[in-house]
């Protein structure tokens, strides 16, 4: 997405863990204000459930896209080019949301576009989470110069311009799906690494790690049984907060024409292609745009509500 942000406000749990290595990043990276404390009755969790529920619905639609789409998303039908949505003149119930210049049904393409975007974003996040967690564990456990080197890499990565790097990677490696996933992974991993490393250091300070070692547990076992379960909550929060950014990043790249390539349906690409038809056939761009807006807003709502929840729990 166009915003490099990783700030905004982090949940207390996350920022507490982040604070464990604040010294490395320097003060400029640390002072992100925690979400404002609320004086007054607790906000009901309805925001969380409503937003989450709607998002789940959208994801479901995406997953079921091949089953519920009225048409194949790439079925060209030149007889029905540029049909407006059904409620307008010239609309047709077979193409509820209208068609694009190649006669492809917009509803089907939107559904498949949701599927594509979410799939790429999910894979990308999984990759970055794995990478980040692995490096964080190594960094925390190994300590010493290994730790310092990895943290310096983290610092550098934070300063690097995400979008430009992704463009470079895409130019070098092509626009296949795996490239997008890897690129996304590479620009997002450091958040996870720092959280995990923070937790490892924290547990080390408690003597936990040493005690387990004395009892004969292998480092892997320690990692799996003790460290990761504690991290589930903040990691989930961070993943949820990162998800929309990644999703929109892919949409943006596809919009520019360097992301998902045709004929695969992608919401960003549809908007990009539809840009030139805004005068007379505005629905070609508007329909996917509305989907993007809906997803973006719902995620924002969900993310805010989640952060509030985490903060309230942390406040006790």
């Amino acid at each position, binding site marked *: 997405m166009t915003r490099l942000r990783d700030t905004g406000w982090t949940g207390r749990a996350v920022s507490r863990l982040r604070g464990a290595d604040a010294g490395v990043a320097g003060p400029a990276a640390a002072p992100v204000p925690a979400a404002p404390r609320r*004086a*007054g*009755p607790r906000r009901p969790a309805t925001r969380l459930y409503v937003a989450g529920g709607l998002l789940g619905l959208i994801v479901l639609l995406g997953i079921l896209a091949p089953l519920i789409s009225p048409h194949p998303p790439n079925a060209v039908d030149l007889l029905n080019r540029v049909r407006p949505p059904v409620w307008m003149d010239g609309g047709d119930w077979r193409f509820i949301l209208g068609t694009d210049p190649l006669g492809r049904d917009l509803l089907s393409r939107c559904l498949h576009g949701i599927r594509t975007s979410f799939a790429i974003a999910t894979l990308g996040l999984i990759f970055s989470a794995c990478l980040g967690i692995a490096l964080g564990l190594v960094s925390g456990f190994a300590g010493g110069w290994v730790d310092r080197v990895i943290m310096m890499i983290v610092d550098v990565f934070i300063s690097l311009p995400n979008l430009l790097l992704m463009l470079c990677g895409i130019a070098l490696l092509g626009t296949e799906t795996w490239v997008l996933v890897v690129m996304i992974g590479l620009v997002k991993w450091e958040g996870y690494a720092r959280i995990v490393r923070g937790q490892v250091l924290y547990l080390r300070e408690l003597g936990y790690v040493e005690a387990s070692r004395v009892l004969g547990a292998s480092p892997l076992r320690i990692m799996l049984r003790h460290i990761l379960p504690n991290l589930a909550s903040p990691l989930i929060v961070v993943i949820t907060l990162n998800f929309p950014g990644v999703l929109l990043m892919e949409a943006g790249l596809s919009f520019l024409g360097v992301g998902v390539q045709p004929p695969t349906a992608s919401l960003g690409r549809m908007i990009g292609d539809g840009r030139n038809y805004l005068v007379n056939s505005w629905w070609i761009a508007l329909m996917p745009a509305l989907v993007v807006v809906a997803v973006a807003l719902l995620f924002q709502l969900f993310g805010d509500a989640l952060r509030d929840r985490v903060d309230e729990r942390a406040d006790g």
Partner: protein
Amino acid sequence: MDDVLLRLRDMRVAFETPRGLLRAVRGVTLDLHGGETLALVGESGSGKSALARGILRLNQPPFTLPRTRIEGRAELRDGDRWVDLTTMPETRLAGVRARAVAMIAQESLSGLNPVWRVGRQVAEALRAADPANGRDAARAAAVAMLAAVGLPEPEAAARRYPHQLSGGQRQRVMIAMAVIRGPRVLIADEPTTALDVTVQARILRLLTGLRADRAMSMIFISHDLGVVAQVADRIAVMYAGSVVELGSVRQVLTAPRHPYTAHLIAMQPGNRTRGIRQAQTLAQVHDPLAEPAGCAFRPRCPRAADACAAMPAWQGTATAGHRCLRVAP
């Protein structure tokens, strides 16, 4: 009385919380005389801070949703008239805070703005009280005040930032900020709690000296009777939002009448006699959200009786008295 400066009449302070209405102060009536030091003592949750802040309506930060309810009257003497602080418009109240009643808050160690130099903050206080002071005049006065509160090298100190000073030094700066305005009443909320013992003694000496020099009255809040014994003329003992005993230092500490006062005195380190009874009463702390039926101290009182199920009335005046049915007035 002629020299009463501040009179509180049935002051009540309550907070709206997610869990209900929290009555921190339940009807306090007392007088503050000119030139005296009145101590407010009690355990945490007794309402002493809330009361002091309530006088100046500083119970919550500015620009936040109002959740404090103040009722009753807090009247400050203004020549021949009395002005009620609880209903005064905010802008006038600011003037009172600047010139008449100065407060040294509890978190005084973080009551200084970390991004401004210390001297500037003291000067700011002076200019709030008397805007006629120009920048330079105020700066000079601030340096002089820093010297008066015992900071070595006041010129250099004035140019420092709060984080560059020690806890005791910051406390002196807070005192300087308050005293430089020439208030008639100084409210000091736990001014020595966060300091270690040697520094404590020095700060207390400073406070008493300044009070005497400038003829201020002081309301001194603490939970430490030992400290209070050194500085106060009169003591008001608070429990669960009410004043349970009020009198001169001598009388209250040597011949306490309310059972809670006796308990407090017994609990002071050095006074403690071993006893299971005392250990038990120590364990139960009053819950501020609970609405007591009758006397709030009843669950912990060794002298409780059935009659105590009704809230006992105050027996005495605004200068001295107590609130226990089981003891003679």
